[in-house]
């Protein structure tokens, strides 16, 4: 074999192996491209591989945390700072390196032997090379590329899920703080009522029974306040975990209200088509199917030829006595005989894997359609409920409070009725906040179901339906 020949062979190998270079940013750019527009309308950066950019990001985080924390800022911080996401992105880099490793051609084997007998000294040089690896390299390259795309898609899903989880956690934390503030007002009303009741009993206008009733109201209200405060603290911790903050950083101030309800609702037209087109889990399932189909082609070759070895041998034999050399060159093809394993099992396996992937794609698509319909219905109902609570129930409660004040003016109602109505009014405000939160949670689910991935168990609407406590009349 001529040197030119040899070089061209190596060149081909090198060319094939050339596309197998490691992505310098660990595929973060690919993930970022996939998640763009899927993190709830906020342009959020992913943690950079390079330390200078990371330091820059930490500064931005400090800046965001110094302000009352908005929902978008929370998403930005979580995507930059969540340790779980760091780990996941790093794992993606590892997988990329493994991919490159997997599609790099195995180094050729060089076998050297030195054999002597009384007459001769024989030196064997064999450069052997797995031919199958070379033959299947294009398939394997493509397959590894597909696998990396799937992995990238999966990581992107985790990014959008984290963004959604952060949004939800922010909504819950802000709502819980507002609800706790409402409970403080309710407790204040109950405290005032109980104090006035004490004074009533002290001067003999009320019995201990009447006083006890007002005190019971106070204790019930205080217990509710304690629960509301705990809920606020717990929800805040949930958010802090998503943000990946602790210590001083965790002492951020939350924005003091939820976003207003939208004027118009998202229409239900074409949502299923959008989900099938946009959802990352659907895309990943489709890639998986493609990969399996490619693997099936490769498995056919592999099944028939098994491990084909190609070796170049150059043996030198030297007459020990004369010093005369004899050089023996030649090719050696190592071919397994398909005597027992005709590759049927491998083919069946590949076939089954294709079927599995096809079924998984179908499953994902069916789930995506159903989830997006379900999410939209929840979204729509949540919007109606929130509008009803905010636009009808709260004004009604206010009206009832106002009318009770008028009755108090006419000495037709007592100050305790007035305070009870004030508590009911405040409860209605708290319910409205929860309904508003439920709407935004449903909206987050819908956005995720539409363009991101499966939102998992959909947010129910139980909390907003919390029964308004009827004031105890006196």
């Amino acid at each position, binding site marked *: 074999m001529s040197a030119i020949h040899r070089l061209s062979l190596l060149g081909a190998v090198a060319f094939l192996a050339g596309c197998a270079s490691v992505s310098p940013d660990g595929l973060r750019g690919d993930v970022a491209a996939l998640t763009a527009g899927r993190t709830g309308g906020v342009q959020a950066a992913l943690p950079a591989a390079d330390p200078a950019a990371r330091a820059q990001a930490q500064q931005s985080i400090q800046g965001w945390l110094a302000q009352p924390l908005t929902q978008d800022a929370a998403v930005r911080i979580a995507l930059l700072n969540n340790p779980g996401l760091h780990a996941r992105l790093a794992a993606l880099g590892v997988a990329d390196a493994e991919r490159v490793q997997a599609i790099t051609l195995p180094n050729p084997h060089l076998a050297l032997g030195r054999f002597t007998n009384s007459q001769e000294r024989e030196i064997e040089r064999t450069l052997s090379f797995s031919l199958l690896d070379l033959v299947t390299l294009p398939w394997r390259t493509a397959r590894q590329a597909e696998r990396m795309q799937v992995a990238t898609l999966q990581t992107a899903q985790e990014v959008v899920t984290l963004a959604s989880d952060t949004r939800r956690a922010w909504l819950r934390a802000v709502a819980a703080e507002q609800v706790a503030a409402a409970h403080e007002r309710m407790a204040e009303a109950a405290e005032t009522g109980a104090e006035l009741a004490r*004074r009533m009993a002290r001067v003999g206008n009320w019995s201990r029974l009447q006083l006890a009733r007002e005190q019971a109201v106070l204790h019930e209200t205080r217990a509710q306040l304690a629960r509301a405060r705990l809920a606020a603290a717990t929800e805040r911790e949930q958010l802090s975990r998503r943000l990946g903050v602790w210590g001083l950083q965790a002492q951020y101030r939350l924005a003091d209200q939820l976003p207003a309800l939208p004027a118009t609702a998202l229409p239900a037209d074409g949502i299923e088509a959008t989900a099938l087109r946009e959802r990352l889990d659907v895309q990943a399932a489709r890639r998986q199917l493609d990969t399996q189909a490619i693997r099936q082609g490769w498995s056919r070759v592999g099944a028939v030829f098994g491990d084909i070895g190609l070796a170049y041998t150059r043996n030198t034999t030297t007459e020990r006595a004369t010093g005369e050399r004899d050089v023996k060159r030649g090719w050696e093809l190592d071919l397994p005989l398909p005597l027992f394993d005709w590759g049927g099992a491998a083919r069946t396996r590949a076939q089954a894997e294709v079927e599995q992937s096809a079924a998984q794609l179908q499953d994902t698509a069916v789930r995506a359609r159903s989830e997006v319909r379900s999410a939209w219905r929840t979204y729509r109902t949540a919007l109606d409920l929130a509008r009803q609570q905010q636009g009808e129930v709260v004004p009604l409660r206010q009206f009832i409070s106002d009318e009770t004040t*008028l009755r108090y003016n*006419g000495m037709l109602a007592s100050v305790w009725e007035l305070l009870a109505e004030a508590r009911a009014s405040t409860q209605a405000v708290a319910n409205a906040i929860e309904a508003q939160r439920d709407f935004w949670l449903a909206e987050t689910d819908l956005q995720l179901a539409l363009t991101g991935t499966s939102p998992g168990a959909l947010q129910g609407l139980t909390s907003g339906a919390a029964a308004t406590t009827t004031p105890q009349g006196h």
Partner: protein
Amino acid sequence: MNRRNFFSGAATAVAAASVSRVALAALPEPALQTSADTAPPLHPPTGRPYNPVVTLNGWTAPWRMNAGVKEFHLVAEPVVREVAPGFVVNMWGYNGQSPGPTIEVVEGDRVRIFVTNRLPEHTTIHWHGQRLPNGMDGVGGLNQPGIQPGKTFVYEFEARRPGTFMYHPHADEMVQMAMGMMGLWITHPNVGKGAAHPHIAKVQRDYAFLLNAFDVEPGSLTPKVNTMLDHNIWCFNSRVFPAISPLVARQGERVRIRVGNLTMTNHPIHLHGHEFEVTGTDGGPVPKSARWPEVTTDVAVGQMRQVDFIADEPGDWALHCHKSHHTMGAMGHSVPTMIGVDHRGLVGKIQKIVPDYMVMGERGMADMGAMEMPLPDNTFPMMTGTGPFGPLEMGGMFTTLKVRADQRAGDYRDPGDFKQPPGTQAYEWTGAPASTPRPARTDTPGTAPGAANARKPAASGHPH
């Protein structure tokens, strides 16, 4: 109330479209009253002469003579009664008002009353206190079938005995009376020229009204018909003070007041400044030997009382029910007593929660009469009415008898506030102040004076 309209003539109108003219072709036109003001006395244009009564915030039904028979036409119908200016109530009544028009006849008159029912349910009329044929007594089911909606019945009998009477339904009466269906009936004595009835004196002023009560939820319009006693609107002729006309008299005139009670509780009617005698009941005139002087007469449920007196003391004299809740407007009967409760430090807190909150009742309820605070729509205030010296803090069954030396005979116009002659009014003591007042309470609040102290060990300071 607009008393200037008093003499604007009987504000009667003729019902036009509401009853079919064909159906009523042979009936007298029913007269309709649109005003809640007191109409001037109706001097009889036809029939036997008599001295007419003045129905407080009411009127007398006109009649027609038909072959010697006095014919009246009552239309039972839903009405909207102005109980006080700005406060109206959906009621059921007769001929546009509740109570219905007063029917005035003379002893011996033959009377024919057409009763047309425009209510959504059947009705009847019972002629309370009358001697009449059993079939005319108006108890639905007992004496007659109910008058179905749209139907007209005729009652006909002779007014046999002089006196003060009432009419009201005796069919679903609990509802129909709770809705205001009632009216007065006066049978004047048949006395010829110059002659006098042995027990019925001739009077210069003859006032008549019914006591009635409604339960109207503040902010609503229709009475609650199932309320038995806890009413909140206590009326003379479906009006409340200060919207009830005053009773006016010229000093020295003999005045008669006729009161009937169609509520479900008794009312001790009390007149200030004079003593009167009960000269009649719905059983007839009281013989002189059976009368005694009084300043209050209790008008029991379903009774009528006729009192006579000489209005000889000039002034503005209260005439009212002596049950203090009955001289109040709408009030919350379950509102706790706040007297003596220290509100310090709490007002601001309450105002933080209820911005329009004002303290009331801490010193009593008189604040209510002075403060003009917004109330629910169509709600009659608990305390209302102002006199020359400030708030009267009353509403409900309260009005005044106004006796004036210069009031013309037959003039029923409100003479305005009484000008008390100098030196005849209570005045403030301006001499040395009273000696150092003793503490208001020497006992612990909430305990009886002189009661043993429950916290004895701590109070006596026994060491432990």
